[in-house]
């Protein structure tokens, strides 16, 4: 992606940074939820978009990040910032492990997707039963809004932190996409055998992709924990986050650095708009949401990023 191509994204991020200063709490809260999903989606994109390994189980990484962060604080009294750092590392570790087990066994395509789903489910059921995670009653962090606790009295500050994370990962994605690692990812994505023939260590490349991807998604989990201060197994390891991360990327534009951010914001905005339109009948907004989603996928199969570049071509 050229520096000029990044301009709309940078303008968007700068505009979003103004929301905490001028927006209402409702809009800030909306933005934080969307940014957490955007971050998870950026993580998914690193593995699924750049390296071509579709995962249905990014909840495994999101949940690990969220739980490690929460457990360290609630059970061991670790400082929230330190706990978050450990949680991101733990997420990367789980990513590496799942990658090692499944890639080494040669699982590709739908088989890899299914095994990630299975890992996420195993983690969900274990977290639901284990005493350390609080089992099914979940884990609650004490509300104590101080910067040292990674909790803020103003939602705006948290929003800026989430935005910073998203911007950092965007920069990382652009850097990877342009660099040697990105080229290796793309080679593995397009044709594994050809990549191997070129001398690329396919397993190592995939492991790098999944560890990076897991670390970013785990960071999203940490943000979730710090923002909502409550976790249970269905939130942390539930399939909702796997689906949202995947949808955001597909809607936004797969394997483009900015796609996940556009996608997450667009999906969340759509959710809110359909809710405003359809206030009267319970659940009708979800039906509308689904219909618009189907239309979007049917008419913009390359996502919003693809749609934008098609429009640009058509216009000039």
């Amino acid at each position, binding site marked *: 992606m050229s520096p000029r191509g990044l301009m709309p994204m940078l303008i968007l991020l700068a505009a979003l940074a103004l929301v905490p200063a001028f927006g*209402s*709490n*409702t809009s800030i*809260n*909306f933005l934080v*939820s969307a940014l957490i999903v955007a971050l998870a989606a950026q993580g998914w994109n690193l593995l699924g978009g750049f390296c071509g390994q579709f995962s249905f189980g990014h909840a495994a990484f999101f949940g690990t990040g969220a739980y490690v962060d929460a457990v360290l604080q609630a059970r061991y009294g670790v400082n929230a910032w330190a706990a978050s750092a450990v949680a991101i590392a733990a997420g990367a570790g789980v990513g590496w492990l799942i990658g090692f087990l499944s890639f080494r066994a040669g699982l590709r395509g739908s088989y890899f997707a299914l095994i990630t789903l299975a890992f996420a489910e195993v983690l969900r059921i274990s977290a*639901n*039963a284990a005493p350390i995670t609080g*089992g*099914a*009653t*979940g884990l*609650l962090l*004490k*509300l104590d809004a101080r910067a040292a606790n990674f909790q803020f*009295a103003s939602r705006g500050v948290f929003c800026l932190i989430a935005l910073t994370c998203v911007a950092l990962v965007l920069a990382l994605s652009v850097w990877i996409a342009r660099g040697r690692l990105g080229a290796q990812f793309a080679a593995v994505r397009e044709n594994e055998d050809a990549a191997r023939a070129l001398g690329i260590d396919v397993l190592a490349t995939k492991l790098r992709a999944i560890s990076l991807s897991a670390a970013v998604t785990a960071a999203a989990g940490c943000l979730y924990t710090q923002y*909502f*201060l*409550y976790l*249970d197994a269905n*939130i942390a390891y539930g399939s*909702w986050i796997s689906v949202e991360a995947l949808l955001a990327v597909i809607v936004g534009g797969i394997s483009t650095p900015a796609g996940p951010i556009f996608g997450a914001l667009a999906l969340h905005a759509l959710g809110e708009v359909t809710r405003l339109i359809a206030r009267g009948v*319970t*659940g009708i907004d*979800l039906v509308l949401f689904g219909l618009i989603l189907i239309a979007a996928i049917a008419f913009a199969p390359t996502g919003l990023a693809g749609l934008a570049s098609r429009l640009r071509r058509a216009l000039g």
Partner: protein
Amino acid sequence: MPHPILTRRTALAATAGLLAAPGILRAQPAAVKLGILQPVTGALSQDGELGRLGATLAIDAINAAGGIKSLGGAKIEMVFADARSNPEAATQEVERLQGDGVVAIVGGFASPICLAASQAASRYDLPYVVDVGVADSIVTRGLTNTFRFAPGFGAFTSVAISNLAKLNEAAGKPIKTVVLVHEDGLFGAGLAKLMNAELPKIGLEVLETIPHPTPSRDMSNVALRIRALNPDLVIPSSYYNEFVLLARTMQQQRIRPKGVYAVLNGAASNYRFVKEFPEAADLVMDCNHWFHPTKPLALAVKKQVEAAGKFMAYNVPLNYSCVGLVADAIERAGSADRAKVLAAIASSTFAGHIMPYNETKFVGGQNQGAQPVNLQVQNKDIKVIFPAAFADAKPVFPVPA
């Protein structure tokens, strides 16, 4: 000659006065907005709808009776929010309710929703009244804005066990052995652990603890295991579908222990189960939330609910009562100011509810007057058998063979 001239200015003033007068006389005091948060889409929608029904009935009743009198008859306006069966959506809705300027929020239903929503509301010192959520952590976090009108998990287990001991004692100790069946999630696992620790203390032997996942589509293995163990009592803690399956399978296999004693069971105190499977439900006991079985107001609400084609599940009376609690607090505060309403709830002695509770008294956000009751399905109806002060039937125990 000086005439009393009607100047233009006087005329204008007079006209303005005349126009304004009816406005002053008939001025409706501004409605008081009350947030009702329920999960009406997603997995918990059935419960959420019942909660909404209870709140709607209460608000209609209060408005029909003249609204908030200390505010000149101000009506209560419901601002409904859909928690969508998950905590993030609930938090988002709390922000919206805050933006809409509600004076308090009632509802939540599930513990995770109540935990997240009350915490979001605490940022604005917005009073939050939990309708059901039984997790004890809801009222032990030190949030000053959060109140729970109904009893929590700890109260349920201790009341359930002490009432079981009393029941067994009164019947001449027919029960010696127990099998625990529990779903492996929220209530089930924790409850089974507590039961395993507490039942031996009242002289009961736990033969086996059988967990099952939710959802389960077949309970034959569990039923066969119960038959093999042949316990005097079965204690199931499952959600609606699984317990219905278990009860039906036990009925088909003619497994008749001396009693089935459920705690916070999804089905044992549900009119739908009693109506659809009267034989399987017969004489099943439960320890749960329930409405006051003899209070005329409670029975009138039940009639209204049935007239609307719904079943009187516990969500309805709990939400009805919680809305009444908040309305009473606004009435006494004489203001829609949140801090005053909060203080009024905290010092509430509200008695206009329809639950079988003693005097309302909040300590640390938990209503000390709240208590679970024991129920039994008798003659295709659900009767309260404990505590004696509220009971409308005597326990049938042990179940006649």
